[in-house]
């Protein structure tokens, strides 16, 4: 974008006394032909633009050379000793022109699409419920925690690796990465499921379902990474239809086939690059690998915290109703989490561009932060009140405590997400350490006092740990998030 600001149009440039005085290094044979030089420059609008926006005469000299004004030409044609003497004259004489780089669009504000994306994340929870009901697997509570935790961790790690490749514009490694992500997730969840089964019991079907669930999550994350959300929605539609029909028209087992079809579609499309792209073994720097390791821990932390609630809730209520109601507010607000995170990033990016001092930026960043947090927590509270009301009507006595715990986890995840998106994953990992430390202390104190750990107290322990994580995340992010250096810089 070019915005001439000078009152004097570039086309009306004339030689000026000051410019002549500047042309100090002239040859003895002839006076410098300032007007001739300026006319020569004015012949080419591109050169005029470069010279008029130059920061100093060196920049003008570089430009003059690239437009053919070599040292020889400048000496023999215009009588200057060298290109720098000529550049000094041009720099002084050509009026300033405000040339600005094309503005890159900043991060977009969140919108209703984010709510839909949140729904995509939540849909599998419905599927899992249908599948579990169809196989009467409620006793094998560890199925969901294992599948969820393993997949959460591995998908985070592989996403880091995928970004690394995309930054290098290396698409030839997509096939290897997609296949590895799914295979690695499947193997990891199989191993963990077998270990858990050996320790806690359960059927072979539970192991298979845990593996299937983790593979589905890994595959869907690949599609989302490649921005193929509509395709994912299309793939999920058979399962969704089957789940709805299972309420009345078809049997649970029939619905399971529909869901399985959805899963197969998602995995098939996620593995698309395997058949369509050339294979190349990707290489990663040690820093990228280490970063992937950190995100693996981050994902595992998220999964474990969620699994702890599921585990204790299942043992406490022996009813899937309470768990479903309690999970409702978090699942419903997943999309809102995305929305508010994007809006926060967009507002801070705008503040970076608009403010000219750090204090103003901090004020705007704080305001954006408060707005996003308030919106998310507000909606979470409203949905929680609705869920609590439903639970009380259904006489689900444990539900209010569960809802409170799940809400705490939701706030904790949102804070963690903000920190992670600001590049502060170490602080999140530190907070996970604090959270699991608090949970361990609470459970050990209960065990030492009573000799066993009641499931109800387990939920309280998760609540305590979530609150500890919130406190830790808030403390660690209190000032950091107001620093402009923590927000994305377009370089």
């Amino acid at each position, binding site marked *: 974008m070019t915005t001439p600001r000078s009152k004097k149009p570039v086309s009306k440039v004339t030689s000026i006394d000051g410019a002549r005085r500047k042309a100090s290094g002239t040859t003895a044979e002839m006076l410098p032909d300032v007007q001739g030089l300026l006319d020569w420059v004015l012949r080419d609008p591109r050169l005029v633009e470069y010279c008029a*926006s130059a920061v100093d005469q060196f920049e003008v000299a570089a430009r003059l*050379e690239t437009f*053919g004004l070599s040292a020889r030409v400048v000496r023999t044609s215009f009588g200057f000793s060298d290109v720098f003497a000529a550049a000094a004259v041009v720099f002084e004489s050509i009026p*300033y022109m405000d040339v600005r780089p094309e503005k890159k669009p900043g991060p977009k504000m969140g919108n209703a699409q984010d709510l839909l994306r949140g729904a995509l994340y939540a849909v599998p929870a419905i599927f899992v419920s249908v599948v579990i009901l169809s196989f009467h697997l409620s006793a094998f509570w560890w199925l969901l925690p294992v599948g969820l935790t393993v997949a959460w961790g591995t998908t985070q790690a592989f996403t880091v690796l995928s970004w690394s490749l995309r930054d290098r514009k290396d698409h030839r490694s997509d096939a290897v990465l997609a296949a590895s992500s799914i295979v690695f997730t499947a193997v990891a969840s199989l191993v963990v499921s077998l270990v858990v089964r050996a320790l806690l019991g359960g059927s072979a079907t539970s192991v298979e379902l845990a593996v299937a669930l983790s593979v589905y999550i890994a595959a869907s994350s690949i599609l989302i990474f490649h921005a193929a959300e509509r395709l994912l929605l299309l793939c999920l539609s058979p399962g969704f239809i089957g789940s709805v029909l299972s309420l009345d028209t078809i049997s649970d087992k029939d619905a399971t086939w529909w869901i399985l079809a959805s899963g197969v579609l998602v995995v098939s499309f996620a593995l698309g690059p395997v058949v369509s792209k050339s294979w190349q073994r990707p290489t990663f720097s*040690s820093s990228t690998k280490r970063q992937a390791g950190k995100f693996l821990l981050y994902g595992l932390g998220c999964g474990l915290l969620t699994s702890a609630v599921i585990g204790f809730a299942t043992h406490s209520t022996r009813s899937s109703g309470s768990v479903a109601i309690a999970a409702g507010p978090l699942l419903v607000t997943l999309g809102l989490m995305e929305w508010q995170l994007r809006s926060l990033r967009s507002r801070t990016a705008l503040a970076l561009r608009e403010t*000219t001092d750090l204090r103003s930026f901090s004020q705007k960043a704080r305001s954006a932060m408060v707005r996003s947090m308030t919106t998310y927590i507000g909606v979470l509270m409203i949905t929680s009140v609705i869920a609590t009301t439903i639970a009380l009507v259904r006489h689900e006595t444990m539900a209010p405590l569960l809802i409170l715990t799940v809400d705490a986890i939701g706030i904790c995840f949102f804070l963690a997400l903000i920190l992670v998106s600001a590049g502060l994953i170490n602080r999140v990992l530190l907070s996970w350490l604090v959270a699991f430390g608090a949970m361990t202390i609470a459970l050990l104190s209960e065990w030492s006092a009573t000799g066993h750990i009641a499931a109800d107290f387990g939920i309280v322990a998760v609540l305590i740990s979530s609150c500890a994580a919130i406190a830790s995340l808030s403390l660690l992010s209190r000032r950091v998030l107001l620093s402009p250096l923590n927000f994305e810089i*377009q370089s």
Partner: protein
Amino acid sequence: MTYVEPTTTDQEHECLRVALLTEGTYPYHPGGVSVWCDQLVRGMAPHRFTIYSIVAASDLRPTWELPENVDALHSISLWGDPKSKGSRFLKRVRKTLGHIGDALVEDKEAPGLFAAQRRSASDTATPRRLSSSTKTRRDADAHDAFESFAWSIGDPDGGSDFLEGLHRLFDVSRGAPLIDSLRSAESLEVLLLVMRKMQLDDRSAASAATEVTVADACLALDLIERQLRPLFEPPPVVDLCHATSNGLAVLPGLGAYWTYGTPLIISEHGIYLRERYLSINAFTYSRPVRSILLSFFKHLTWAGYQVAKAMAPGSEYNVLWLEANGCDPSRIRPIYNGVDAANFIRSSSNPDVPTLAWLGRIDPLKDVETLLYTFAKVREVKPETRLRIFGTASKENRGYLKICEDLARDLNLGDSVTFEGHVESVLDAYHAGDVVLLTSISEGFPYTLIEAMAAGKATVATDVGGVREATGGAGIIVPPRDPQRMADACLIFLNDIGLRNLVGRAARERILSRFTLDQSLAVFGDLYREVTGNITSAPILERNQVRTEEDMLEQFVMHLVERFLGPTVEEIEVRGANGTIQQIPEERSFA
């Protein structure tokens, strides 16, 4: 910094340990400078080399096979993790536990929930906010050093302060990165003030009114901190540092100079500062960011000139830029690139159809657009002509390649122009054309040109850098960015096979007599020994030694071309003070 092979030292007499300092070239990228580096290292055996290569990303693989006399390759990544040593992990854990509130190290990009959010996955630098209570002494020292350093960037005459500031930052770092210390709110605040002052001091009231935003300051701090990273690497323990360009490549050499007194020599193929001015333009950065970055590079190159014992520009022409930026003329020793003549033979056959060949990196500095416009004009006269473009685009320049491909399509060049990418044998590429073109807007002493000449090809090249010194009349030179003149020159060669062959032979003779690899290496050998004090009085290449006033070959070729073409004065139209058109003698007149 990655460590590829263990360093060995060689104490043999007269066998120097040399640190070759590169930026964005050898051994990770192709291109003329990389060719030169490879030739230099191989040719300077038995001297032992350690390569310090400054690169953008940390996960590159060398594209050059390292010669046997390379003891180690250190890559210094500007956009990667500066340190990846396991031993630092425990220190970080201890530090993290010790200062829960503020001890954060090395946070990086975030894919977020299902990759919806992301910071650059190749970026590892961590912005960090330090509270005053937890600042270490080192942080405070670093901040003090940075403050004076930053103000020196803003001072047009602050070269000495800049050099002193670099030295202070180097002392504070003690071989470990200062990322956390420099990426602080305090540094940001200082930079914001400096940038504001620079805008106020700017030449134009309109420019002074340009507000410096926090985003500008963040970007400037981000970029300057990255550029400084090579300074914080442990300095090379060698007898001599040889930087292949000024600028960032000099930074490890400065460390070695300050620590061990190691002499530094700098080769400048293109002119580093000139190329920064061309690349950091108004279309890429805002004026405040551009002003401070260019001032940073100007001071940095000035600093390099002050510390280097010798400067070896690749051509006589580039000496102008060195002197203009404060280089002591007595330290300047132009040394031309050389080609291994044995690798370049004349072809006995010509292409089936009239063909123009171009070889090089697809890069805006090579001005491929002018090449395409030129070709379009040639085709208007000779529609059967082909253009074969050999060379690849780096990751950063893939957008430019797309622009060029689109332009070729817009010009309806169809299949007559081919982007052929990487070529295994450059000789085959030269022989693929009847005429070899060079369209660059900035050059040092281009290999493409001297290799094509060595292969006996007629060349048409732009009048930039040392091109005129290379051809010496054995080829046609036209002004840069002038497709019409270049097309005219191409047509002269395409229409006259006799002239083409004659000029090609003359060009090869010129290269064999002046610009061979052996000659170039011999001069470097002398220079190495002189600056390290291994010999006392070996004469080093004198300025203008290579150029003689009476250049018989040039005169001979000029005479031949005149015979074929008639008037031989090229005219560049320039309007003189009296309003008349002056005829400016250039190399040839083909208009």
